[in-house]
């Protein structure tokens, strides 16, 4: 399809308002047909407007108009409703309802989240809607849509609607050409022949189903012509679909329309039914994610996949794959750190190209760690390969990785004529077709039988070399020399033999089992234990498609063979052609066999990287303290329930390197450290619960313990704050006392007696005529000394002296500043205290803030009450006095009255004094609180800054990348984190070796 990407400019056509009242807002689609715009329609509605430019595509426009005339009378809930059809300046304009998105867009969103496609159930919902609509238009109007594709299925609400009727066709009308405008990916074969059928839409719908579910198309043609040919001839590729769906989609994709389902609904119905019947598969698929298993635990699954493949030899149900719990079991292996690890003489036997890569790496590791290979005669390598070039590469350079020629054994194939004389012997164990089909390259080219042929051909040399190597590594003096030179505790002569090969290669896959039996027969011959013959089988597929299948087939057959030998009641029959005796009784090929999936579609470089962990494992398992751990791992029995006698077990291992120098993990660790440090600054010691805890009970205990510590911690902070408050005499009574004391100092004596004297003096003083009322004057004097009750904080009174409240406030301001500074300093000190940090400081500041606010509220309330009492008293006294005056009482009051008035005045003075004190204390508290709040704000800011800082160290995504690469399962991740936490907790005494295996 030729898609135009630029928006078309048409002269004389107002695109902003194609139809009066409809204002285009946003372009939502451009295609060969024209454009679709999101449009403001009259009434504030949003509509979709499709513009088909007639002058660009008059055929298309007229066809579309014809189609519209067919469809415009058809109404169905799942057909996108057409609201207006106009022809403006010869351009066709169609107004339809506006959908949320197309199925295609929805699918792309799902893909962006890492899903393969839409969840099956959801997809079937949509397609059922579409099927309803399609069946409806056929059954009632004999119409076929003929352009069903994900772009034309629009989602409105949670339902799907069929849109774009550009090709819709009445089956009983003849039409000139259908080819133009159709979408070849989804078009049924009959459409290419111009003969649409009542089942045509069903075909497209089936393709839409497959694509939306799996992201794969049944036909992969890149050009219209190629696709057409495929639609017409090639059977569809349905491999990506769940098994239960395959026959259904295959039927819907029949080349012969009559072979399909009777209706679209029947197709969808069948899919729904199949889903119910096969709930597990669907569930599996509903998750939709690529089945990427954590780490190498996937390897046994792969085995199952092979077993379930097109060959049906191995009963897959008998293969039990490791489960998540097994990891926990691994994690729970306890190692006695004090016990010295015991090592054994080791022979590594590698077969084929993948083993060569592994061995180069392994040799480099051994030499780097233990010195030259000559210094450790009890550790030896033997690399076998049919490919001499590969061996030359293995031995070819000067690096420590290069194998010595004596560590290799070339077992090249020879031309067929060389085998003719020995044919009788060889043909006993290999089909003649292989003997006569040796490639010109004289390599196995990925055929296992050829690997075996080379082994049979070179069997004598091979056995000699193995005998030589095993004799060498187990010789007493060699064991002693090695122990001396390497410092390894080589306690026994009983050797370990690791047989390393790729099962997917011709050489490795063809020889490995025979080589294992060869090793065992020699061990028996030398009187050594056959206990520790380990198989390290690797599987990888290369890029080229043909080779990939070959690799899979090879692994399949190697594993089948291994399976056969390991089953009770079967045994290795021996091979007279290469002098191997049959094995009876304990006939398992390996005492422990590992199967490692290196990866699929690997390039040479990737293969190199992928073999690194294997080399690392071999190295660790043979000559590092990790050996003890692996030994214990091997002791774990994986017995499937009810398996009697024990079934063969394939083990696997994953490797993740911690603190390795060649990865970005150190950076991540550093950043994690920074983050944790920031978090400590922020909140004190790290949360212990986050640490991995292998056992549930322990976790619970930890949580409980943690909760307790948390409470205790903050409880302590509050206690401390209270102590501090007490220390600072932050309390109503002490503060009132202080205020009273200040007032006393001001009046040089007891403040109450001062007022007594003052009132008496005022009372007894000669009265000036102008003064009028005596009582008013006394009130005025008291007020002048104490400050006006109503004045509050305002300045005023006599300019010559400050009233007592002003003096008091000024004096208290100084004290408030001092107290606030002390509190602030104390809080800031908390930030540095390891048990409090910012969080604790905040807690303390808030505590102070609360305390001060509460106290302030109390004082303000008290002051309010006092003010009311003062007002009431003053009014009462004055009104009594005024009343008396009005009654014409003499100017000289009687003594009783005078005493009463004095008592009232004393009371007034006392109340006024209390009020002044309360107000001052309130003000004092307010001042301190203001400072505390400021402190708290600063802490809050700091807290936010720290959070941002911590967030900037968010390494989680990269962390998971790093772990993905090294394929570490969750438990490893957790253990690593716990190690890290330990490091942080004891950073005064950091552990030197963070690296290691888990």
């Amino acid at each position, binding site marked *: 399809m030729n898609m135009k990407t630029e928006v078309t400019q048409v002269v004389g056509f107002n695109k902003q308002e194609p139809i009066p009242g409809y204002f285009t807002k946003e372009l939502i689609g451009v295609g060969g047909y024209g454009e679709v715009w999101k449009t403001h329609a009259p009434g504030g509605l949003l509509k979709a407007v499709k513009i088909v430019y007639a002058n660009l595509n008059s055929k298309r426009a007229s066809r579309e108009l014809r189609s519209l005339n067919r469809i415009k009378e058809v109404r169905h809930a799942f057909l996108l409703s057409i609201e207006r059809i106009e022809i403006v300046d010869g351009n066709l304009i169609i107004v339809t309802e506006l959908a949320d998105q197309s199925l295609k867009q929805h699918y792309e969103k799902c893909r962006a989240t890492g899903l393969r496609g839409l969840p099956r159930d959801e997809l079937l919902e949509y397609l059922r809607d579409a099927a309803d609509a399609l069946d409806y238009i056929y059954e009632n109007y004999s119409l076929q849509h003929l352009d069903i594709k994900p772009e034309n299925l629009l989602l409105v609400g949670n339902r799907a609607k069929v849109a774009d009727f550009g090709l819709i066709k009445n089956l009983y009308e003849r039409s000139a050409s259908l080819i133009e405008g159709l979408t070849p990916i989804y078009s049924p074969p009959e459409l290419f022949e111009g003969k649409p059928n009542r089942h045509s839409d069903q075909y497209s719908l089936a393709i839409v189903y497959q694509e939306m579910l799996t992201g794969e198309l049944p036909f992969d043609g890149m050009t219209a012509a190629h696709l057409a040919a495929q639609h017409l001839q090639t059977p569809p590729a349905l*491999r*990506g679909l*769940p*098994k239960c769906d395959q026959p259904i989609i295959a039927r819907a994709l029949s080349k012969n329309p009559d072979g399909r389902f009777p209706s679209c609904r029947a197709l969808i119905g069948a899919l729904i039914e199949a889903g119910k019947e096969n709930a597990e*598969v669907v569930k*599996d*698929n509903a998750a939709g994610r*690529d*089945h*990427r*298993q954590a780490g190498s635990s*996937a390897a046994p*699954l*792969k085995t*199952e*996949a*092979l077993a*379930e*493949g*097109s*060959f049906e030899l191995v009963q*897959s149900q008998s293969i039990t794959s490791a489960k998540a719990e097994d990891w926990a079991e691994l994690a729970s292996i306890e190692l006695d750190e004090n016990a010295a690890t015991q090592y054994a003489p080791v022979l590594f036997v590698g077969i084929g190209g993948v083993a060569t890569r592994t061995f180069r790496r392994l040799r480099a590791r051994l030499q780097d760690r233990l010195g030259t290979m000559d210094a450790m005669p009890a550790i030896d390598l033997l690399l076998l390969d049919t490919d001499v070039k590969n061996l030359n590469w293995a031995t070819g350079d000067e690096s420590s990785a290069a194998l010595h020629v004596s560590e290799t054994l070339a077992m090249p194939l020879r031309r*067929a*004529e060389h085998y*003719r004389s020995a*044919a009788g012997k060889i043909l006993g164990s290999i089909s*003649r*077709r292989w*003997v*006569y*089909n040796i*490639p*010109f*390259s004289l390599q196995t080219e990925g055929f296992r039988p050829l690997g075996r042929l080379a082994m049979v051909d070179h069997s004598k040399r091979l056995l000699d070399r193995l005998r030589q190597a095993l004799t060498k590594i187990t010789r007493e003096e060699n064991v002693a020399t090695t122990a001396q030179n390497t410092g390894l505790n080589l306690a026994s002569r009983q050797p370990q033999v690791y047989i390393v090969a790729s099962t997917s290669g011709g050489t490795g896959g063809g020889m490995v089992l025979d080589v294992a039996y060869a090793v065992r027969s020699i061990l028996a011959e030398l009187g050594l234990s056959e206990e520790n013959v380990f198989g390290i089988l690797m599987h990888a597929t290369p890029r080229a*498609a*043909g080779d990939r*299948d*070959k690799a*899979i*087939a090879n692994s399949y057959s190697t594993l089948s063979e291994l399976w056969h030998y390991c089953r009770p009641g079967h045994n290795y029959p021996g091979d007279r052609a290469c002098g191997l005796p049959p094995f009876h009784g304990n006939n398992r090929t390996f005492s422990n066999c590992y199967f490692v*999936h290196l990866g*699929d579609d690997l390039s040479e470089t990737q293969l190199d990287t992928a073999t690194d962990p294997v080399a690392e494992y071999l190295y660790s398992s043979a000559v590092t303290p990790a050996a003890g751990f692996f030994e214990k791992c091997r002791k774990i029995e994986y017995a499937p329930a009810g398996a009697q006698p024990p079934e063969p077990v394939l083990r696997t291992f994953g490797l993740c390197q911690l603190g390795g120098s060649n990865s970005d993990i150190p950076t991540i660790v550093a950043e994690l450290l920074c983050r944790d440090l920031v978090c400590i600054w922020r909140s004190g010691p790290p949360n212990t619960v986050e640490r991995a805890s292998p056992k549930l009970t322990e976790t619970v205990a930890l949580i409980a313990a943690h909760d307790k510590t948390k409470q205790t911690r903050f409880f302590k902070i509050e206690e401390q704050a209270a102590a501090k408050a007490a220390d600072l005499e932050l309390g109503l009574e002490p503060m009132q006392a202080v205020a009273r004391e200040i007032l006393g100092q001001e009046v040089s004596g007891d403040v109450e007696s001062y007022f007594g004297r003052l009132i008496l003096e005022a009372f007894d003083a000669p009265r000036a005529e102008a003064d009028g009322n005596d009582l008013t004057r006394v009130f005025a004097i008291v007020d002048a000394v104490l400050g006006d009750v109503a004045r509050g904080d305002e300045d005023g009174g006599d300019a010559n002296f400050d009233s007592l409240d002003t003096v008091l406030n000024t004096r208290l301001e100084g004290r408030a500043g001092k107290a606030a500074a002390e509190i602030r300093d104390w809080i800031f000190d908390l930030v540095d205290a390891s048990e409090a940090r910012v969080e604790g400081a905040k807690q303390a500041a808030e505590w102070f803030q609360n305390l001060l606010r509460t106290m302030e509220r109390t004082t303000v309330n008290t002051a309010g009450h006092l003010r009311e009492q003062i007002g009431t008293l003053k009014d009462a006294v004055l009104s009594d006095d005024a009343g008396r005056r009005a009654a014409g009482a003499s100017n000289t009051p009687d003594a009783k009255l005078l005493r009463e008035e004095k008592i009232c005045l004393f009371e007034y003075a006392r109340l006024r004094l209390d009020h002044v004190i309360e107000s001052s204390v309130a003000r004092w508290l307010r001042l301190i609180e203001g400072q505390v709040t400021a402190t708290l704000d600063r802490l809050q800011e700091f807290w936010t800054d720290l959070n941002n800082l911590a967030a900037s160290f968010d390494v989680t995504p990269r962390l998971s990348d790093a772990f993905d690469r090294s394929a570490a399962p969750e438990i490893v991740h957790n253990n690593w984190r716990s190690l890290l936490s330990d490091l942080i907790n004891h950073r005064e005494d950091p552990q030197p070796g963070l690296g290691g295996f888990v």
Partner: protein
Amino acid sequence: MATHADAHEIDDGLRSILLSDDNFWPAEPKSIRETGLNSSFIEHLICKYLATTGSSSGRSIAESLCLSFSILGELFDSLRTRQIVVHAGAAPFNDYYYALTDHGRSRATAYLGESGYGGPAPVPLMDYVLSVEAQAITFVAPKYAQLAEAFRDISVEPKLFASLGPAINSGAGMFLYGAPGNGKSTLARRLTVCFGQKIWIPQALLEGGQIIKLYDAAYHHIVEEDDGTLLRCQDHDCRWLQIWRPTVVVGGELTMDDLEIHHNPQSNVSEAPLQMKSNCGCLLLDDFGRQRIAPNELLNRWIVPLECRHDFLTLANGKKIKVPFEQLIIFSTNLEPEDLVDEAFLRRIPYKIEVGDPGVEEFHFLFKLYCATFDCEYRKDVVNYLIDTHYRSQNRAMRRCHPRDLLMQVRNYCRYNDLEMEIRPEYFDCVVESYFAMVLKGKAKRGN
């Protein structure tokens, strides 16, 4: 990662390679070295080809030489550098048309003088020898079922069947004797079918600088290319052809020369002998004893090959080569074996199977069979009439060929007289006269 849900499907092509019964597959050579030929030899072939065709594109040259275009590239460059060929224009797909220069033409003439061979590139003799060993008939052991399948549409008596099976399995020679017309040849031809497979043979061989043509369209029937997926999925060496196992039938025309490499001095090209052409198949010596060479002579020639399963042939340049002698040899004769050869030879041909005359029942059965073939109604009474009138009363022996031959004559008779094809006593009366007159005369002369 694959799981249960998406088990890996092995590509059909690979599966058919892995599981195929083919013992031999000529893999496509990836370099000149892998062809087993040297580059100057191939250059000669290219020059000779261009001398006869004028100009040709690189690809068509490669096609005619049955070598892949990719390995010839360097040779074309070298020829051009040495000014033996020139580009005569561009050809599609990154290719050129090549033509000989004058210099090249004179060379080509010289090459043609040395050897006129201009066909597909040959295969080294050793490759051929291995291919025969791999595909030898000795390793295919046909069971009863295969035999029954091969003789499905002809009538074989159970007794004969029982003795044929082991004889075929021996892979050595056998005598089929009995009166003429009883289907010895038919039987012999059918035998190859039960080996059932296709084999690969090279079109020509190269040994000691001599080219020996092996492929002979008369005996070798090529398997159509679109037959299986195998061919499409894996490239094979085009110098090899996949054929049905050959059945080489020789009659009286056999001479001693046919058993040696036949060298044409003009073209300096040799032709493989019959026994080589029949390797991996069947060699049927029909009418043994009637050859132009005496039976003793023939058997003397083959006494060693029959024993050792290889033959020595002499090339035109005098070199003796050892070639496999791996075929089922059937001597079919209407003479008694004892009359033909002495005991020493008979010992080397371990199976002697007599193909006798059919009984009345089988005769009826044969009529029934052929009536169906000729699309007419089988009438038992008419056949009984025939037997009574023309066999029993005349003391004539029934032969397996009679029903077919007589019906053929009846058909011709009906056709000529514009009658509907059917069997009637009077028709038989007519045709019997002409048919037996000749046969009987011959028989009288020979035997009685």
